[in-house]
């Protein structure tokens, strides 16, 4: 978790200085979808405040937005639709479109990054999950 928080803070600094894409939102939504838990809400709230501060936006604005989107992703994840990669990608696209209404960024690149980020986040979250043994066909 500490590593994840450090990576999130690094991403926030990068997207407010060098990058013109909202990577943090994509990663947050994908994590909320793949691992629905309350830590996602705390991350959305706290890092939303940090993003508002770094962007010189009104404090609390991004927190509200990220909390809502993260909660929506968790609700969908726990429903019957929660197993399809396309649903996750669709969630990311909708989230980016909503966020672009507040601060326009390069939405095309954000959408293109959604698929590799999905697999990256999935790999990271499932790294300690033991897979079933591989049976050799003799």
């Amino acid at each position, binding site marked *: 978790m500490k590593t994840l928080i450090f990576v999130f803070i690094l991403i926030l*600094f990068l997207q407010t200085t060098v990058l013109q894409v909202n990577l943090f939102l994509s990663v947050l939504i994908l994590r909320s979808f793949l691992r629905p838990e309350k830590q996602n*809400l705390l991350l*959305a*709230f706290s890092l939303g405040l940090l993003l508002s501060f770094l962007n010189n936006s*009104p404090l609390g604005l991004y*927190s509200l937005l990220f909390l809502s989107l993260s*909660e929506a992703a968790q609700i969908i994840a726990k429903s019957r639709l929660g197993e399809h990669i396309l649903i996750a990608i669709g969630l990311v696209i909708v989230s980016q479109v909503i966020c672009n209404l507040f601060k326009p960024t390069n939405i095309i690149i954000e959408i293109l990054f959604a698929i590799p980020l999905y697999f990256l986040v999935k790999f990271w979250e499932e790294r300690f999950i033991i897979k079933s043994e591989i049976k050799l066909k003799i």
Partner: protein
Amino acid sequence: MAKLIPDLKLFLLLILASFLIFFLDQAKFLSLPKAGLSYLTTPLQYGFYKTGQAAQNQFGFIFSARFAAKENKALQKQLGELISENASLRTQLIEAKAQVEQNTYLDPKTYKTVAARPIGLSRYLNIDKGTKDGIKLNQAVVFQNNFLGQIKNVGEKTASILLSTDPDSKIASFSINKEGKAKGIIIGQFGSEILMDKILHGEKISAGDLVYSEGLEGFLPRGLVLGQVKEVLTRENEVFKQAKVKPIFDLRDLDVVFVIIE
């Protein structure tokens, strides 16, 4: 409801906290903590920004170097084309000037000429005009008011000129000076020499006199310059005297010649 919306209590609590922070920020109650936190975040943001700029400049240099190489190649090609076009235009300009100057020597109302470029010189002088341009056998070839030769062979696009220095060339001529006039026949000697033969001993001719065409053959006008007398050869035991004549122009210096087609 709690089952439908996971972590509902925490979610509502955080939403309320967000609203509270929002209103406090709008009321400027959070200015001091924001100012204090900016002492920590601003240097970090500056560091990230400068690093990003440096990386961008490095990549930018690579892209601009590639672009510059492509642009250089394209410009070199364009330069080659322009030089070629310039050379072609210069040639056309020289031809046009020569044509204008030629018209001052031969009246275009009387003589219609066609400009041609020498393309080879062996025994005959080859030019780049032929039957397609109105060239016919035995037509006279001149430069300004100087006679160079006559058309010996003609193809569709090229022709050969029998030069006045060729032994097969025989032209009726005369020279004139203060002391009088002398008539003879110009015969080519190969190289760059011409011999004016059949001059009567009584007729006056001396070195430096200009030799002109009589125009008796029909294919060339009277009064064209055939050359200048270099030396008069007088032998008492012979009926006629002779004179060595040198053409005014060196054929190798000429970029354009004119064929009298009418």
